[in-house]
């Protein structure tokens, strides 16, 4: 089995988890490389937390094997797996001082009293809260509590750090700071980390690898750029960012570009990296952020490749950006998210839109995939 691969810290093979009749996780395979940060990303109920809890040993897989550092751990209870775990609500022991909280895991690891003191001091310094040892969790803010939780988990030098939506209980402003802190700490310590979140921005900004899950099924895995730019199915394309989907057909391949004709008759050029044949039914995917919008009289002469004219039907102003719904000539409706330059366009304005073939993704047409 591949579990002999030295650089894989966590491996899942054919993991299935049923809760009664509900299939929460359906045959998942996963490899987590030494020192990497892997994000399990998906909507609530997609099975991501269940997978994390199975790796932790808090749930038992219905079928399949879990390896940590090459050791089959299916029957090893959680307290002998050498994990660090971070929970959504921090889960600091309310009746213990911060020092005792951080020292907790060391007590079960044959560490001498003086070493415990030293290690706790270092861990508290690492999370930049060196002076709170005597306090109690209720005396700290949410962000501080989460940093203590982090210190408590890393001080035991776990084989793998498991984080279950650690930022979701924090305020918006704090979340970004904490995210960077976790990211820096993870890189500094090089601790293998599995991070569960439903927030795509967290996932895209921190991960070495993103694993997108839906309905207990692994949808796509890969580096953030790949998953974002080259989604391999409709769920991933839709979940990460806002996308436009249009059914169509591959007409030809010319100069390395596919010519796509939509059912509405519009033609787009795409240089999608996969191999498609003439006549393939496809779905054209274009992210809302990838369109350029110009007032019609202000449009540049040169086109990126796919230029159309239309009228703004609706818009919503969102501060840094504006979301437009534009009807193109010939009856095609597109959703565009555009950075506000000087002034936002108004409803009824005639506009030109343009999008590069690089950003025209292709997915197999709906009819050609088995109904899921």
């Amino acid at each position, binding site marked *: 089995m591949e579990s002999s691969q030295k650089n894989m810290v966590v491996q899942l093979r054919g993991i299935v988890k049923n809760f009664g009749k509900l299939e929460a996780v359906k045959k998942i395979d996963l490899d987590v490389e030494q020192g990497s940060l892997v994000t399990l990303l998906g909507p609530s109920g997609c099975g991501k937390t269940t997978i994390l809890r199975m790796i932790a040993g808090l749930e038992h897989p219905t079928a399949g094997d879990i390896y940590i550092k090459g050791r089959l751990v299916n029957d090893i209870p959680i307290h002998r797996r050498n994990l660090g775990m971070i929970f959504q609500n921090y889960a600091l*022991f309310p009746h213990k001082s911060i020092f005792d909280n951080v020292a907790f895991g060391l007590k079960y690891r044959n560490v001498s009293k003086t070493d415990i003191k030293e290690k706790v001091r270092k861990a508290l310094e690492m999370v930049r809260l060196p002076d709170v040892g005597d306090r109690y969790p209720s005396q700290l803010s949410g962000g501080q509590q989460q940093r203590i939780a982090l210190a408590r988990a890393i001080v035991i030098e776990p084989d793998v750090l498991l984080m279950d939506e650690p930022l979701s209980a924090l305020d918006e402003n704090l979340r970004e700071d904490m995210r960077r802190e976790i990211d820096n700490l993870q890189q500094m310590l090089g601790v293998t980390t599995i991070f569960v979140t439903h927030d795509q921005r967290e996932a895209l900004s921190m991960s070495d690898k993103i694993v997108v899950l839906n309905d207990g099924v692994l949808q796509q895995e890969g580096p953030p750029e790949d998953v974002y730019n080259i989604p391999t199915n409709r769920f991933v394309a839709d979940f990460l960012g806002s996308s436009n989907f249009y059914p169509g057909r591959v007409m030809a391949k010319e100069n390395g570009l596919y010519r796509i004709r939509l059912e509405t008759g519009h033609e787009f050029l795409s240089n999608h990296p996969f191999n498609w044949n003439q006549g393939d039914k496809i779905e054209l995917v274009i992210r809302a952020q990838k369109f350029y919008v110009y007032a019609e009289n202000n449009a540049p002469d040169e086109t990126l490749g796919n230029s159309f004219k239309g009228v703004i039907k609706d818009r919503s102003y969102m501060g840094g950006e504006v979301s437009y719904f534009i009807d193109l000539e010939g009856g095609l409706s597109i959703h565009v998210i555009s950075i506000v330059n000087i002034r936002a366009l108004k409803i009824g304005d005639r506009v030109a839109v343009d999008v590069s073939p690089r950003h025209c993704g292709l997915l197999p047409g709906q009819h050609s995939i088995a109904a899921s």
Partner: protein
Amino acid sequence: MFRITGWSLIRLFTIMIYVFMFLPIVVVIILSFDTQQFASFPMRGFTFKWYVELSQNESIIRAFKSSIMLGVLAALLSTSIAIPAAMAFVRYSFRWKNSLNTLLLAPIMVPEVVLGVSLLLFMRFLQQPKSFAMLLLGHVMLTLPYVLLIVQARMVSIQEVYEEAAKSLGAGPFHTFREVTFPLLLPAILAGMLFAFTISFDNITATLFWATAEHQTVPVRIFGMLRHSISPEINALGTVMIFFTIMIPLFAAFLIRYFGKKRI
């Protein structure tokens, strides 16, 4: 001038309810200091005589000792049953869970006379004589439901993540209990024990059936004394009882407050 409004009627009504509830108790306490043999108003004088006599009454002292021993043991026993029971009912799922839980709480609903007679008949069926052990078992039966309710309510409010966090850090099931679950349960455990003690200390109906001649509890003893005569000593004894049974729950409430403030 004073106007009669709806609110002042409600106020008057409320005051009357309190008077109705507490006047008899206050009368007992006041009359326990009267000098007359047959205490009645108006009082003739003030004395501690009856308390002194009480403290010299061998049988009362003995009853006090058995009451306290019984209460303490019943509290300890029912708490040590209630803790694992509460953990099982709250943390695990198993067949018949709800039925078993209801069954453990059932003695609250059963009339005490029935409980008293049935335990007696059961012991007869087993051909066991009345004994202190049987009395203790009976009191555990009476107090367990209350302790279980208190501990279970607290258990529900302790999030499971604390235990999960302890386990993830390397603590086995025993250490997780000792280091996390037990300390977090402690306020409820103390409250439950004090509550159990008060219930046991106060009980008369069921205890009348179970008490043996050498292990009479204070309430049973008072009941016995009343059958012969109404002595002012009983007023003094009643006052002591009232003091005990009011102070203990107050102390429990204080403990809960004290621990509650610092934690969570």
